[in-house]
């Protein structure tokens, strides 16, 4: 769920842009360092961004129908690390605004904060913590993707509630309102996203290890796992 163009008041639009900027700069600096060592990562992240964009434009079969689509953020955060997902998330969000009119330019900062920063960091943190506690790969992947998704949607609800506090109940009432309305689509979506990400990892596990190592998929994953 992205906040649409023009929906946020000026101060909020500018504020979230300022809040996201340091993360984007940090992500770019770390990415530039990576590119010096492994130039083919330039292509890798570009291609991965396209993959995630397509995944996010797919309509999923679920109770809520056409409005539900996965974000792929959990998957990306587990595979590439959350920091790399900030510039990648920026490109995906910009493209969603420019190619799908989904989100917008004035709300890019706010949407990047929820989907490109909070989501990936929560997903990666959950994954690392669960694997550290000895949880199975499937459970780790499911909760990382699902909670990453939920964190994104709760952040968006916070952003909306802060910008439009309830005249009577204030921030808390407004948060309950926005979170409640969007829960109809976002909670089932988070579960579907978790299940889908597990299905993807299950599918990947069926390739033989040799092939995945050649593609540098396993080492990175094992290093984190």
């Amino acid at each position, binding site marked *: 769920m992205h906040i649409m163009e023009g929906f946020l008041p000026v101060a909020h639009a500018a504020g979230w842009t300022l809040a996201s900027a340091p993360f984007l700069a940090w992500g770019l600096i770390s990415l530039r360092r990576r590119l010096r060592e492994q130039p083919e990562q330039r292509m890798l992240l570009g291609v991965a961004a396209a993959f995630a964009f397509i995944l996010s434009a797919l309509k999923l079969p679920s109770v809520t129908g056409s409005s539900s689509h996965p974000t792929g953020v959990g998957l990306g955060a587990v595979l590439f690390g959350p920091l790399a997902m900030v510039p990648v998330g920026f490109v995906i969000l910009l493209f969603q605004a420019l190619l799908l009119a989904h989100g917008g330019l004035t709300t890019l900062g706010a949407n990047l904060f929820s989907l490109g920063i909070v989501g990936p960091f929560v997903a990666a943190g959950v994954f690392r913590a669960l694997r550290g506690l000895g949880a199975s790969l499937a459970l780790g992947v499911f909760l990382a993707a699902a909670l990453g998704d939920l964190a994104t949607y709760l952040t968006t609800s916070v952003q909306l509630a802060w910008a439009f506090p309830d005249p009577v109940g204030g921030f808390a009432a407004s948060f309950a309102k926005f979170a409640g309305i969007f829960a109809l689509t976002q909670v089932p979506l988070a579960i579907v996203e978790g299940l889908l990400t597990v299905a993807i990892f299950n*599918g990947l596990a*069926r*390739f*033989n290890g040799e*092939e995945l190592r050649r593609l540098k998929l396993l080492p990175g994953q094992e290093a984190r796992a």
Partner: protein
Amino acid sequence: MSGEALLRFAAVCQRYEDGSRGLEECSLSIRPGSRNALLGPNGAGKTTLLLHGVGLLRPARGQVEFQGRPLDYGRAGLRQLRQRVGLVFQNPERQLLSASVYEDISFGPLNLGLPEAQVRQRVEAALGAVGLADCRERAVHQLSFGQKKRVCIAGVLAMEPELLLLDEPLAGLDGPMRREFEALLEQLAGQGITILLSTHDVDFAYRWADDLHLLAEGRCLASFPARELPRQQALLAAAGQALPAVLGLHRRLADLGLLPDEPPRSLDALLAALDGAAPDLKRNPA
């Protein structure tokens, strides 16, 4: 005529979402047990027609009939149809979805809801039919292009279809693989499976098919038995197809009195006919 058709397209019209033309008043019939080749330039609608045949696209006007009844696009109807009509896509890379050969072939039978023992039996039978029994445990990405195409066919055969649709089955195959593939098609047709395939290779279509269907700009220009092709040159040209090489040669040689008037269906047959004619000539060299 329509009573005896296995699959029939009746004035099917359809456009894609992006506005490009799919089919335009396209009508043709496939007889049960026949071998059919769709000929036409790129963009003529060959792939689109095949997608309509398994209900993956839906006509805006006109209708598609299977065994005389219009397709039922409900869930149950499509399930039934796709059990009986299998489609093999052109690009095996886009169609093989599992990492292992065995798993990929079991995809369809499992979706049919068959019990495991029967799924295994069908997978084995399909592997045998395409001559890949030795590859059952291989990973898909270790296979050659020709083997991947065979796995795709096996995946469809495992659903035991009555009608097999193949999109450009010969594209991308090298010489020896083509010959193997033609033998496989021969064998499937021999088992009584009705076959409809699209191809760019007019020489192959002429020697293999019972019926030819010419497509251009979303329409079926004409359907006729392959042996009548020599009399349909104007239509062939309208569908952007060259004449089979054997026909040009036969005409000259028949003009020279070297061959009988009835044209052969392949260069091999023409050479054989020439050998038959040779003794006469050797005796009276020009």
